């Protein structure tokens, strides 16, 4: 169900869209579901009022998290309609000032910064999956394995943890490979596989952990004590501002808002896709994973085998990181033959949570390179690039040798003075039409001569392109290039019933100004051709004035002085 709508950019390029809405929701939920859902949330809840923490948490989610999700989805879909899938291009489209694109750079910088360490932690989970399956933790405690794995046992600064480096490189390669497969076959497919497995592993581990009893080997306390530790409401915490701050911080952390990754995913929406439903669903799936599964696995299982006091000490810093990587692998040994599988499921769960998030961090960077530098990914991308190269050769280099420079000078003259097309103006449309004409017209025909045949499209590209019609003065605005003013002689007829028509009194039979109120300068400057236009203000000669975009508004129905 991949949309293969031709892009207005490169000839032959296909505009990427989400394949299915389920895939979209899973991918965005996977972006939000991360290591923090399982490692940070239960510790934060336990340290900030227990069950009472959920009150500021859910209020923050409803008042800040959900609206921010909608805003980011809306920004992303808006930018995607203009061919921008990364925040710099989207922000450049949001306002008249081109400086906004520099604000959007943070949408790339943040993702790169977080991904730099996130992929490394992700590689630990993948390594733990392997070592769980091969039975490493059955004879080596995780407290011994982990420092050796990281190489911290060797004091030399030249010591390289080769195993950790190999897993890290492998994780980076896996992320790169998935991203190179494109949106539908890469990110969406990974989410469709990873998220159901994550939910399955989470449900299995939660049921197994909560059903541990005093008769099971190694169990020193009921796991329900750990559950009580997380959910016991301490209402005094509600009056502590730090509790509300921690709740709001956890909401921001878990939803991944303000990073630019949601913008990117939403940019691949169709114009009529439902933002409210999809965004709310993705947020709700994330909350389910965090509140239900996140609180039912780590702390209850650890409490069952370690006791509440040790768990309280381990989560005092507001993170369950130590419990997850140092303690839990050993505790799973108590589960007999199911232990290695359960350990692999736990770290597989963390790995799927991690990779769906790291892919969301990489996608904006890939999209930025594609959009603004016209790079392509994968074998399909190479084919597109070759087709594009042929089209450019046909059109841009129609004449060989010494004639080429003359033709280009002629082209430049015709483009600038006759068609009023400047550098950066309507570039995408030009390329497409040039490519089309290049297949039909004789090769030795100059570029401007071909453009003359499509001058209507060049003059008003908004009528011929997909997506929302743009205002004429914005038609040539692209990232990194200044806005191009439209032809000054254009006339825009306004409908009497439209909002702007009412603003400019189009079609009104009564004049707002008596003839005597007109300034002499106005009547003297008004040309016969424009004398029928209204005088909109008391400023000198405001009739038939050009708009800020250089467009002249004409009123065809008002005539002469009125009472």
């Amino acid at each position, binding site marked *: 169900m991949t949309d293969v709508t031709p892009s207005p950019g490169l000839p032959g390029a296909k505009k990427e869209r989400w394949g299915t809405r389920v895939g979209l929701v899973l991918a965005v939920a996977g972006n939000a579901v991360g290591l923090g859902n399982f490692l940070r949330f239960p510790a934060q809840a336990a340290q900030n009022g*227990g069950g009472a923490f959920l009150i500021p948490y859910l209020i923050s989610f409803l008042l800040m998290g959900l609206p921010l999700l909608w805003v980011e989805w809306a920004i992303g879909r808006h930018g995607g309609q203009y061919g921008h899938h990364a925040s710099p291009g989207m922000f450049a489209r949001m306002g008249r000032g081109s400086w906004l694109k520099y604000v959007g750079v943070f949408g790339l910088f943040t993702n790169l910064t977080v991904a730099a360490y996130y992929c490394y932690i992700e590689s630990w989970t993948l390594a733990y999956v392997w070592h769980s399956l091969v039975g490493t933790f059955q004879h080596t405690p995780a407290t011994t394995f982990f420092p050796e794995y990281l190489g911290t046992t060797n004091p030399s600064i030249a010591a390289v943890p080769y195993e950790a480096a190999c897993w890290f490189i492998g994780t980076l390669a896996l992320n790169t490979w998935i991203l190179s497969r494109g949106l539908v076959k890469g990110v969406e497919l990974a989410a469709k596989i990873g998220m159901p497995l994550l939910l399955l592993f989470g449900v299995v581990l939660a049921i197994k952990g909560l059903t541990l009893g005093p008769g099971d080997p190694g169990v020193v306390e009921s796991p329900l*004590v750990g*559950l009580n530790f997380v959910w016991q409401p301490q209402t005094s915490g509600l009056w502590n501002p730090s509790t509300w701050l921690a709740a709001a911080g956890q909401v921001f952390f878990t939803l991944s808002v303000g990073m630019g990754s949601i913008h990117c995913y939403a940019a691949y929406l*169709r114009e009529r896709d439902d933002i409210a439903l*999809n965004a709310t669903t993705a947020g709700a799936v994330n*909350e389910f994973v965090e509140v*239900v599964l996140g609180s039912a696995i780590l702390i209850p299982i650890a409490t069952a085998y370690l006791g509440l006091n040790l768990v309280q000490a381990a989560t005092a810093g507001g993170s369950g990181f130590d419990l997850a990587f140092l303690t839990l692998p050993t505790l799973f040994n108590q589960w007999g033959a199911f232990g290695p599988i359960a350990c692999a499921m736990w770290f597989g769960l963390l790995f799927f949570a991690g990779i769906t998030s790291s892919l969301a961090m990489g996608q904006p960077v890939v999209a930025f390179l594609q959009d603004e530098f016209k790079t392509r990914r994968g074998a399909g991308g190479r084919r597109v690039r070759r087709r594009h190269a042929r089209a450019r050769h046909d059109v841009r280099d129609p004449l060989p040798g010494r004639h080429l420079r003359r033709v280009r000078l002629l082209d430049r003259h015709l483009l600038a003075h006759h068609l009023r097309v400047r550098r950066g103006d309507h570039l995408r449309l030009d390329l497409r039409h040039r490519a089309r004409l290049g297949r039909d017209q004789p090769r030795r025909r100059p570029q401007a001569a071909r453009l003359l045949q499509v001058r209507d499209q060049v003059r008003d590209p908004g009528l011929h392109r997909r997506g929302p019609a743009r205002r004429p003065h914005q038609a040539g605005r692209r990232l990194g290039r200044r806005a191009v003013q439209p032809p000054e002689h254009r006339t825009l007829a306004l409908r009497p019933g439209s909002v702007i028509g009412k603003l400019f009194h189009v079609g009104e039979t009564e004049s707002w100004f008596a003839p005597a109120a007109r300034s002499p300068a106005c009547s003297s400057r008004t040309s016969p051709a424009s004398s029928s236009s209204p005088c909109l203000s008391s400023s000198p000669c405001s009739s038939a004035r050009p708009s800020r975009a250089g467009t002249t508004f004409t009123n065809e129905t008002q005539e002469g002085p009125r009472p």
Partner: protein
Amino acid sequence: VTVSAWIMLIATWSVVAGAALFLVLKVLTTPPRDGE
């Protein structure tokens, strides 16, 4: 587990899981709009 903890747990899990299930089913059953 204390009664208050059970109340918070059941109430929160019901709301969160119910909302997630409802919305997922809504996404799955809503037909695409014209033009999608």
